[in-house]
């Protein structure tokens, strides 16, 4: 890649930050050039983020309909899935799925709620609300 080909298309997912890439200058030497972002990166990052947001919104609707617990909503909101939540909490996947049932979730001990909240980086209060 030549220095003048370094993409400067902007990428909203970088949040205004510029990244360093290596490109060839006029003298043929490779050096660091700052890039405002490439549309390709924006497309694939947005794709991943949008998919996670879709899952979270879908779960939120089901929380409102009483079909799932706020745990499932917050799991997606924290960009996790069941295997990852299982890894980070040390709980079995089937147990986590069971906690998606609103009635079961309502009876969880403060210790268990704390365990979930802590790996997601939120408070227990937040965990109980779908917002």
């Amino acid at each position, binding site marked *: *890649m030549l220095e003048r080909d370094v993409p400067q298309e902007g990428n*909203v*997912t*970088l*949040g*205004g*930050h*510029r*990244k*360093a*890439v*290596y*490109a*060839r200058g006029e003298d043929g*030497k*490779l*050096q*660091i050039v*700052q890039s405002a972002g*490439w*549309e*390709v*990166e924006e*497309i*694939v*990052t*947005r*794709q*991943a*983020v949008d*998919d*996670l947001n879709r899952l979270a919104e879908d779960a939120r609707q089901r929380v409102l309909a009483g079909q799932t617990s706020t745990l499932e909503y917050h799991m997606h909101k*924290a*960009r*996790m*899935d069941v*295997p*990852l939540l299982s*890894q*980070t*909490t*040390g709980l079995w996947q089937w147990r986590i799925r069971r906690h998606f049932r609103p009635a079961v979730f309502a009876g969880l001990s403060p210790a268990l709620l704390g365990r979930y909240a802590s*790996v997601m*980086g939120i408070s227990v209060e937040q965990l109980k609300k779908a917002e």
Partner: protein
Amino acid sequence: MMEFQHSQASHCESGVMSAMLRHHGLPISEPMAFGLSSALSFAYLPIIKINGLPLVSYRMPPKFIIKGLQKPLGLTMRFETFRDPVAGTRRLDELLADGEVVGMQTSVFFLPYMPEDLRFHFNAHNVLAYGRDAASGDYQLSDPVFETTVSCAGEALQKARFAKGALAPKGLLYYTTGKPSTPDWTKVIPKALKKTTRIMLDTPLPIIGVRGIRRLANAIEGLAAKNDPAQAKMFIGQVVRMQEEIGTGGGGFRFIYASFLQEAAELLARPRLNELSENLVDIGDEWREFALSAARMIRDREPLVPAALAAKLRQIAEREKAFFLDLRRAA
């Protein structure tokens, strides 16, 4: 306050190591840190799933660069992990109070200065701590993928250092003991070059190196048969994201290595390495064409044809094979 020179890098681990070594008086570029530790690679790991999608890596696993620089530079790195987060934070404070520059493994998800959209659960992001702000107590960090230094509240940093899950950092701290020395380039560079060619060409596992690229091509081609375009788009999106996304996972490793080859050509007075460098830049550009085509398919700007992406990957595999064979001869 200690004098510390921040400089932006393309990749976190090579960036941290070159900054740390520079701080200790050995001026080493990021590409040199990357190339000398033989960090260039390719791996397609279908068993390791992230949100149900396989892991693709364009370099060797985390800590490979930190560990790999010890031998060529006659360096001793100290690594410390902690069971108790409070103890981990206390030790970091101690080291900073002693004037040490400390490398840390962190989870991107818990670093508040990261752009929101990039905060995924990636547990092997490397940053350097070089001090604390006298007024707020916040940690002063040199995150190599950022343009300037950043600061981070203690609580958030502790969370990032003790995140759980795959590649859990366990509070990992690392720093150098003893001074690094300028190596005999004519010895260490050829050795590092050969090691990379071995990884790319000779690893018996069919998912590593050039064979791994071909295996990924097969997997992408197989997406057509599943007849689930949404899932197929997620899969190829993931491959590109790992290739291109901000310094944590992917990020133009072919270009970094090409830059290393230029430096090596000069240090060894071997112009052949310059030609190989140009060759590798072209290969890097092909990876970018692959990414561009994939992104266009994801956005429906061109028809979704997995076979076309697979063909592109096989072409890249062919070129990389020829390239690493040439590199082996040149080393």
